[in-house]
């Protein structure tokens, strides 16, 4: 078909106009914050990342959809997606860097709480204390102006030990009344020329707007009068009330102000906040519920009266998005979120396994944290690996076989490095961490094999051994309770006798006794728990058990 020259020019002109519109439109997405009173354009097609439920200072978080690559000379190729973050530094809080509260605990003792409301003085302080993407330094700094707003333009180079390759961080810090707002872009050094124009356009699009009137400082600990450690001092009933309130507050916060592309929905006890497809979000919730119920059924005696807070399950649509989300915020004891992503790994997905481990941590943490922390390496490590293999199949929990572990342990057995279960169960953490790396991984693999055997394997189906794991855990708890009572009694005695050494000789003796005593204490706990649980077993019983065990794993 032929066209007139005019028609061709008009078509070309239209196409050019459409292209110009598309190019211009790529910077037209906008971020608005009524609380702080500003708007800024963000590159279109960059994903908005939600904030953590207890986020205090990060007010915007975006990530490019497009990845760039860096290849180290003679080495590997890394991938990096540029990102944009906005961090607020509220000036009145800078003056009050720490708020110190004096309270009374339940016994009437003075307790000092130091609450960092504003831990960062300014942007460079924030970088110095938070940035972990490599060694960095300020390459350039100059004063700029955007409309009426003064700003400082900072260019940072990330060179030494930089993850994913040398990077450039470009930040404009806008100086507003009562507030400094740092808008930061992080890109690969090599790809900076490709994104520079768009980044600069975003910087220059910054505008102030009337504030909504909401407080500039978001109280980090709203409704949270206690930390989980303080909550240990409450009665189970009081603790239940506190935990229920915590859970509700956390769920409300997590589900609020979600950016486009994110949703939240209650699936049973869990609030799931997700950017993946809803079907996968439900799958994660179903799996978490199955692990929860398995723990309820397998260890019902652990912290029977304790209420377990249901965590928020946050499911990102990709690993990149998940990593970008996890860049923000600070760790704190009261965090109640399990973060994962849709990695399309199917039944062998590492990230689904990580959800299960998260549920295990939350469940044991709230039912009996002291017991959980006291578990020896074979049990804690083994349990984490076994739980990680749980999947839901036709509404029922199934524990998958870990082929990698099976092959690894077979090699260990074949090469004569395998330990008998009795030996494994008597290994202290000190012994485990003080030798060869291979020993550590050998033990870790065998621990998984042993707990699998006990919890879901042949031992779980045998009348004699089906409660092996539970018997051991009950014994460990009983020993822990006895030890605690003994220590409380001795504390009182020592306070009376004023046990501080008076001479260097006494001091050296105390030092030696403590050094040896710690090791002895570790061994004692394991020996007592073992004897209490299996005191009635004879050597023959153990031989029989071990034969079946080695047949199962070999």
């Amino acid at each position, binding site marked *: 078909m032929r066209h007139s020259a005019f028609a061709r020019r008009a078509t070309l002109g239209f196409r050019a106009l459409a292209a110009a519109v598309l190019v211009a439109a790529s910077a037209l997405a906008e971020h608005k914050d009524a609380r702080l009173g500003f708007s800024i354009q963000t590159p279109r097609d960059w994903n908005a990342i939600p904030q953590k439920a207890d986020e205090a200072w990060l007010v915007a978080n975006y990530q490019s959809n497009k990845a760039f690559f860096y290849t180290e*000379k*003679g*080495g590997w190729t890394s991938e990096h997606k540029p990102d944009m973050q906005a961090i607020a530094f509220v000036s009145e809080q800078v003056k009050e*860097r*720490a708020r*110190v509260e*004096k309270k009374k605990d339940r016994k009437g003792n003075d307790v*000092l709480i*130091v609450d960092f409301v504003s831990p960062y003085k300014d942007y460079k302080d924030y970088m*110095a204390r938070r940035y*972990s993407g*490599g*060694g*960095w*330094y*300020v*390459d*350039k700094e100059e004063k700029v102006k955007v409309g009426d707003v003064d700003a400082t333009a900072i260019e940072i180079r*990330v060179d*030494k*030990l*930089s993850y994913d390759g040398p990077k450039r961080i470009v930040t404009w810090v806008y100086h507003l009344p009562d507030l400094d707002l740092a808008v930061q872009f992080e890109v690969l050094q090599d790809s900076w020329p490709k994104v520079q124009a768009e980044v600069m356009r975003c910087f220059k699009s910054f505008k102030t707007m009337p504030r909504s009137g909401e407080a500039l400082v978001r109280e980090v600990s709203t409704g949270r009068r206690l930390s989980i450690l303080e909550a240990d001092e409450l009665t189970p009933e009081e603790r239940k009330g506190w935990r229920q309130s915590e859970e509700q507050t956390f769920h409300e916060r997590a589900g609020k102000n979600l950016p486009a592309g994110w949703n939240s929905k209650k699936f049973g006890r869990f609030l799931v906040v997700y950017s993946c497809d809803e079907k996968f979000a439900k799958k994660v919730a179903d799996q978490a519920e199955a692990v929860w119920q398995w723990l309820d059924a397998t260890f019902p005696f652990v912290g029977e009266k304790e209420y377990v807070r249901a965590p928020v399950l946050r499911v990102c649509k990709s690993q990149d998005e998940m990593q970008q989300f996890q860049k923000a915020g600070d760790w704190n004891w009261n965090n109640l979120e399990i973060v994962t992503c849709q990695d399309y790994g199917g039944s062998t997905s590492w990230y689904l396994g990580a959800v299960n481990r998260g549920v295990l941590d939350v469940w044991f943490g709230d039912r009996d944290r002291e017991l959980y922390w006291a578990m020896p390496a074979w049990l804690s490590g083994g349990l984490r690996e076994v739980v990680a293999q749980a999947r839901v199949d036709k509404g029922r929990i199934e524990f998958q076989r870990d082929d990698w572990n099976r092959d690894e342990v077979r090699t260990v057995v074949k090469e004569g490095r395998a330990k008998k279960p009795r030996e494994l169960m008597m290994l202290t953490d000190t012994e485990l961490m*003080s*030798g*060869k*790396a*291979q020993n550590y991984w050998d033990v870790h693999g065998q621990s998984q094999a042993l707990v699998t055997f006990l919890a879901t394997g042949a031992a779980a189906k045998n009348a004699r051994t089906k409660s092996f794991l539970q018997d051991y855990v009950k014994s460990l708890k009983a020993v822990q309770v006895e030890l605690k009572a003994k220590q409380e009694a001795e504390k009182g005695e020592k306070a009376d006798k004023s046990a501080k*050494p008076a*001479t*260097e000789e006494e*001091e*050296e003796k105390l*030092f*030696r006794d*403590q*050094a*040896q005593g710690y090791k002895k204490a570790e061994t004692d706990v394991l020996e007592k728990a073992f004897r209490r649980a299996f005191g009635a077993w004879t050597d023959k019983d153990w031989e029989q058990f071990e034969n079946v065990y080695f047949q199962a794993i070999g």
Partner: protein
Amino acid sequence: MLSQLLFAAVAALGAGDVLCLKDGRVVDGVPMERKDGGIALAYQNGTVFVADELIQDAVLEADAARAPADAAEAEQRKNGMVTFEGRWIPEKKRAELVAKRLAERRARAEEAKARLEWRNRAIVETKNLRFEHQLPDHVFAEYRDSLEAFLATFSRNWKLETPKDRAKLPVNIYIDRRNFFQVAGVSGGVLAYFRFKKPYDLNGYHDRLDPDYAKQVLYHEFVHYLEKLVDIDFAYPHFPNESVAEYYGASRWDPVARKFTTGLLQEGRLWEIQTDIAGGERMSLERLISSDRLYEHYTWGWSLVHYLMNDVKLEPKFESFFLALSKGKAVRRTAIGFDNLQTCSADEVWRVFRQEFGLKDAEAVRKFEVAWHEYVDGLIARNTSVAGKEKAGYQALETGRPLRAKRFFQEAIDAGSRSPRVFLEQAGLLLADGKAAAGLALIDRAIALDPLNGAFHGRKGRALKATGDKAEGERLVKLGREIGGDDPWIEIDLTDGDDDGTK
């Protein structure tokens, strides 16, 4: 009129006094005044005196307007003559000379201050090394000379040569720990590092409160590069790698005699070994050598290398063992997976060690171990230098033995220690014992040695508040914050009797 010309010349340079300390710091923005024996800095919360012995240079505006020293000078000044370096010259000429000198010194001070930003670092190439650093020139000189001397000494001792086509090793030295963490990209307990994957890179920092130790740490890391002269494609396993690095880390450069001495005592490591022994633990030879990544490779491992390198019969065997790991034909090596690097397993290291030293059975191993342990006991008994006592004190304090710590700190002080940290730690111990006057006196001595360390003033302030002098204590805490420092605890003022002044 007397010095208006000079004053004008100085004023034209850019207002403000500036002080350059010998430890590399540059202070400005605070009014300063020359006093007998030093300079007084007038902060908002108090005056701080800095003794001449700590000062590298100072450029004060008031230098221009000095009163006549005596009547003879007053008479000369009436004729328009002023004194300058022992002779009388016209005032205008002196103004020009002084202005020129002040400008040069101020420029040096400005350059030193500018270097605190890594982008303004100095870059210096020597015969084998390429330095990038933030240090003032007079501090840098010793690093520059000592590392080149170290390379020459190691090459001579091990009969090695630097290949002509080998690129110069980048050596990055930061002005302090904060800069090191930030720019070199590390954190926590890292004191220095050598990037053993290409491109090679050595990074460390200058510790102004313990410059000798800072250099020893850099020497340790430098050894990992020197091992590349043995075999560029071999990554030495943790033992003997770290143990040999500790051995050579204990080295000293004498800038006057221009001599580099290696294999000295690692006093701090010896005290860590003593702590293990006090706790009932002695390291077995087999466990030491056949374990991966053991922390004790830095302590007991160092002592083993020291034992072997100081025995006429054993030294050649150790050298043979060390070289055999990378070059021995019968040694089993495995690829690491990058840069064409190979290494050995710890089990293989143990096999080669026994072979080289003829340890054919358990009895031979036991005898060897006994001899080594006896050597270590001898070293501990000899660890009586001032530095040794200081480190014994730190080790005792860190391991919960305050009585022992107090004794060693006092012995170090009595033997002439000039470490402000030692005075401060001892002060803390005395204050905890209720000996306020003695403790405060020691804090004053720490301040005299490092008067521009805000943390010290803060500590004194908190101690005073705890002993009842709240007003003065608060003033000093504010002074400490104003001066600033390396101690994050000065940002937090624990008051109202909660603080007993020990931290």
